[in-house]
């Protein structure tokens, strides 16, 4: 069974009660108690003002997480391949289109239509960062984080160049929310590189395993992990928060989990 290796250069987290990586790191390392609070998603500074107003929560959290991870590193976004992973991209746009199609007029706005594609955050990201490098957008329903992690690590293995992974979710509004409950918005971004440079956070290895996925002891954090697809990353983030070598099993597909291990860069 082969293992995929990467170096994590920097990362970002935005989620309920976890406003940024420094705060999330302290909570996940057990230095601070978790305090529940709705996810506070900053306006995407990358976008021009008119698009900033029009962009939905999914685009906002994806761009904010990606930009924050890059700001913590030393790379130019214009050169970096990207992988965007999400269970459902922009739920508000989807809801608005379905409502209009159920009405008599069926007038969809052109902007709304192009914002409905799963790769809308990728499109806005590449425009904002002037990045012409490849970008992909993947979906695995509840398994979307694992899908993104595998896609990003395989891309790194093939191209031997840095990859930015952005996994994000934004809940649908009602009535879709009742059919697809997602607790809150969440975004996590990992800047991966093939070799450890100065300031790199950790070495990462990923492999498939039939082992059962790990649950978190903290009930509130475990609640996030279970109810937001991109928060399936939390056991990995907790390892990174600890700063020491360690291993975890991330939930991916039934019977197909991901064994991740991290070690400090020497």
């Amino acid at each position: 069974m082969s293992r995929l290796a990467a170096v994590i250069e920097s990362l970002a987290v935005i989620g309920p009660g976890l406003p940024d990586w420094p705060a999330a790191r302290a909570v996940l390392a057990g230095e601070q108690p978790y305090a529940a609070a709705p996810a506070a998603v900053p306006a995407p500074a990358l976008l021009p003002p008119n698009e900033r107003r029009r962009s939905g929560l999914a685009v906002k959290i994806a761009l904010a997480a990606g930009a924050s991870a890059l700001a913590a590193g030393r790379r130019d976004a214009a050169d970096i391949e990207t992988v965007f992973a999400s269970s459902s991209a922009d739920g508000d746009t989807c809801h608005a289109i379905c409502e209009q199609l159920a009405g008599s007029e069926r007038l969809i706005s052109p902007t709304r239509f192009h914002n409905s594609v799963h790769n809308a955050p990728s499109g806005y990201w590449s425009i904002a960062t002037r990045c012409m490098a490849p970008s992909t957008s993947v979906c695995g329903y509840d398994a979307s984080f694992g899908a993104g992690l595998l896609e990003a690590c395989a891309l790194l293995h093939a191209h031997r160049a840095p990859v930015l992974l952005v996994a994000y979710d934004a809940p649908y509004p009602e009535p879709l929310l009742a059919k697809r409950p997602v607790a809150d918005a969440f975004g996590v971004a990992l800047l991966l590189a093939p070799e450890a440079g100065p300031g790199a956070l950790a070495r990462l290895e990923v492999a498939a395993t039939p082992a059962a996925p790990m649950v978190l002891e903290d009930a509130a954090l475990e609640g996030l992990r279970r109810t937001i697809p991109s928060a399936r990353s939390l056991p990995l983030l907790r390892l990174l928060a600890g700063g020491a070598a360690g291993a975890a099993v991330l939930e991916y597909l039934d019977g197909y989990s991901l064994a991740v291990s991290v070690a400090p860069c020497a």
Partner: protein
Amino acid sequence: MRPLQLSHLTLTTCLGRGLEATAGALQRRESGLARRAFETAVLDTCIGEVEGVDAVRLAPALAAWDCRNNRLAELGLAQDGFAEAVRAAAVRLGEARIGVFLGTSTSGILQTEQAYRRRDPASGALPADFDYAHTHNTYSVSGYVRARLALAGPAWTVSTACSSSAKVFGTAARMIGAGLIDAAVVGGVDSLCLTTLYGFNSLELLAREPCRPWDRARSGLSIGEAAAFALLEPLPAAGTADAIALHGVGESSDAHHMSAPHPEGLGARRSIESALAAAGLQPADIDYVNLHGTATPSNDSAEDRAVTEVFGSRTPCSSTKGATGHTLGAAGAVEAVIAALALRHGFIPGGAHTVEPDPALRAQYTLQSRAAPLRRVLSNSFGFGGSNCSLVLGRR
């Protein structure tokens, strides 16, 4: 990249079910586009509807996945012995060693569009029988195909609009190259729905008559639906001489606009050039280019610029969207399979419905289908968000 063999192939479009029907129709330059009603749509346009999708029944154990998109997937899997070939590979390699990577743009959203017409008048709730996870969610088609083929390896959907099911070939190549899997089911499935019909209508990109790629009078696209699949495996060192292989994948981003291509075709050019580099080939090595060729005025002119800057004006090119319609998230896989058919049968498909190539476009546009011994073929797929992907297929 190390070449991969397309061990088994199939596709189902408005041209017909399976490889033989498709190859024949393309050689005869037929089109499956027609002015016909779909669901409750009231639009003055032609569509490429696959016959008999509504009559498909999923196995009882898989009933939760039932929606038009997964019925179309099932219809596609049943052609050319494809499902049986994958099962044989699963027995040989192990269920967990075969990945499933499929492209779609709208998955089973038609199910949600219809559910929104049946909301509870008092609460606004969607009907109890509506199953979001198994139908509408973008992963649904990959989850269905993985369950239907009883596979147990990694799976996800790539959803980058109209480049989706070209990019899955790259995903599969990287996952096989990294040793995580030994083979992959790749492909694309996208089915007719109101979101895309009314969405492209809102952008004023729908043609009234069947679409005419590269024509001086082209006026927009015709939407189609399709299911196309390939089983990818490493190319054996000593295999059959007529094996069709994936030699290169190139990807890029336009970084220009959400729904309009870069006017100079910069992203497209970068995608084509990186596919050639991955294949270790020069432009002159390509015998035929299957264009993205949607028939919108701006898409075709941007692509013409990219193609002619790389290949000049002598490499034969055509778009098969006049025959199949634009099958959106399935288009990349449909056209990869068409490229494989062109290689296998030795022909260049003529561009159906195109009457007079636009004199402002410089690519060598092929109007009539003709026999041609092909060795290497390039296929382009470009999508919203500026997502570009080019594939190089060829004989070993």
